[in-house]
């Protein structure tokens, strides 16, 4: 299962710069901030990291699982943000009154992951809330080939700041993998990975962090099995290309 844990955040130069830029943008009096990129480029991780960092200083609400229903959406935010006690549905007008009464400073931030799943009507309400300066929204969107969600009218007219996340370069991927291994105290394994291994991994995953995580997980599972059943086949000098390819086949990065 793909679990996003802000503690697993790996500092990579380009991502770190982007994150610092995002943090600075959040401090600006902007109503909506868009974070977009292809799946697996680290949007959710960045959003979780932002939530972890900002929640120390201000009121921040992270909604990683989209709330499709409009009344539920308002109710959840009112409950978590303003301590609205009732389970009854809440209107937009009443929600704005609650926000006005709370009068938080700085403006509370709501982080919405997978915002492409929200309906147009709900996005319109989000726009009204942000226009009233009751809340500030940071939303993440998938950028796909089939549908350029950013082009949607809501985001096109309301987004004041947008940040695009890219796949990692082989060098960034190397740093990412090795740092993750070092974080897990897997020093020997980190030393086994050479540039050719990284080249193969980057080729199969195309620099996608999520795919790289899956591939590495399958690879280590394979090595664990080999150590147990066929230890003679395991070489600790470097990762064998064959096993990387087998892991890629297992994770469907290669269609065999």
């Amino acid at each position, binding site marked *: 299962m793909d679990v996003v844990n802000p503690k697993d955040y790996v500092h990579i130069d380009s991502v770190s710069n982007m994150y610092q830029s995002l943090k600075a943008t959040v401090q600006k009096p902007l109503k909506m901030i868009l974070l977009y990129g292809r799946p697996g480029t680290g949007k959710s991780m960045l959003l979780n990291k932002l939530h972890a960092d900002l929640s120390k200083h201000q009121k921040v609400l992270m909604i990683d699982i989209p709330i499709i229903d409009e009344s539920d959406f308002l109710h959840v935010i009112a409950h978590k943000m303003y301590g609205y006690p009732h389970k009854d549905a809440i209107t937009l007008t009443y929600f704005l009154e609650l926000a006005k009464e709370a009068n938080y400073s700085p403006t509370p931030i709501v982080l919405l992951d997978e915002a492409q799943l929200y309906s147009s009507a709900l996005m319109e309400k989000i726009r009204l809330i942000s226009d009233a300066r009751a809340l500030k929204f940071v939303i993440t969107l998938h950028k796909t080939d089939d549908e350029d969600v950013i082009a949607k009218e809501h985001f096109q007219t309301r987004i004041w700041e947008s940040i695009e996340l890219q796949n990692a370069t082989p060098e960034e991927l190397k740093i990412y993998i090795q740092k993750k291994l070092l974080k897990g105290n897997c020093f020997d394994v980190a030393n086994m990975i050479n540039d050719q291994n990284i080249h193969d991994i980057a080729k199969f995953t195309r620099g996608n962090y999520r795919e790289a995580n899956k591939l590495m997980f*399958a690879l280590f*599972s*394979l090595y664990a*099995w*080999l150590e147990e*059943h066929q230890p003679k086949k395991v070489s600790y000098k470097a990762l064998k290309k*064959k096993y990387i*390819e*087998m892991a890629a*086949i*297992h994770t469907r990065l*290669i269609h*065999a």
Partner: protein
Amino acid sequence: MLDVDALERRWLKYKLKQFLPYLFYPLVVVAVGIGGVFLVKTVQFSPSVGVPTIAHKRVEKSAPHNPTPPPMVNHADVKSELEPSMQFVQSLPLPSAEEEEKPSILVQSPQQSTAVVKKEKSVIPKEVSVTKKEVLTVKKEATVAKKEAMVSVPEAKVKTQKSTNKPPLIYPFAQTKQPTLTPPPSLNGSSQTRASGSTQYPVSLDIHEMEDRFKNNNSPYVGLYIARYYYDHGNYNDAYNYALKTNTLNNSMEESWLLVAKSLVKLGKTDQAKRALQVYIAQSNSERARNLLDSLEGGSR
């Protein structure tokens, strides 16, 4: 849990797919190479095999139009005797009246009179382009040598020359640079020359054209040619007539005088022949005419 065995099989399949293109293209290249070699060999053999096939197909196509195919002719067995055409004579620049006068002057000397005979050359157009003056400057020695060569050429040799598409035409107005290859007919009264039969003439149609031409331009050379033609073909009447006409046009041509005399002899008019020779000897002091006269008087003719 990983099914490593299944995964390894899938990996083998993947590697096979991965290397298949690298195996495929060399195989294609090798196949193309083999095909190319085969094609080249086929093309090399095709000239000997293919051409008859095409010819055969053409014959088959034309078969409905010609139900009875023409008899096969074996060219090796057929002795085709090429008849030289006299067509080119019409295109030859005939000597003008002035030019014709020159040989008449030159004929005064026996040496140069033989040079006139020298004008009998091959039919090659390039050689025909030689000017008249050049013809007249040919020395007697060369002419005599040519005559000798002409006499020595056997009939078989002449036929060989015909078969090589080089008809040894004897033409009084043609000039050749290789007289030995195309011996001119001798009008010198040499019995040896006549006996050899080496003198070659165009087809009969051409002689009629020559006659028409003679009627048109009254050239003594054409007249002499026709007279010689008829004499060699046994038509002594016409030979006499044309030789006489030639004498009328140019009375200093030794050949025509001799032809007149010899034709008269053949017609049984030996006395007239003697008189003609005497007249000519009186005006030209021709040695050949004298010899002929002596032979007539001696009864050897």
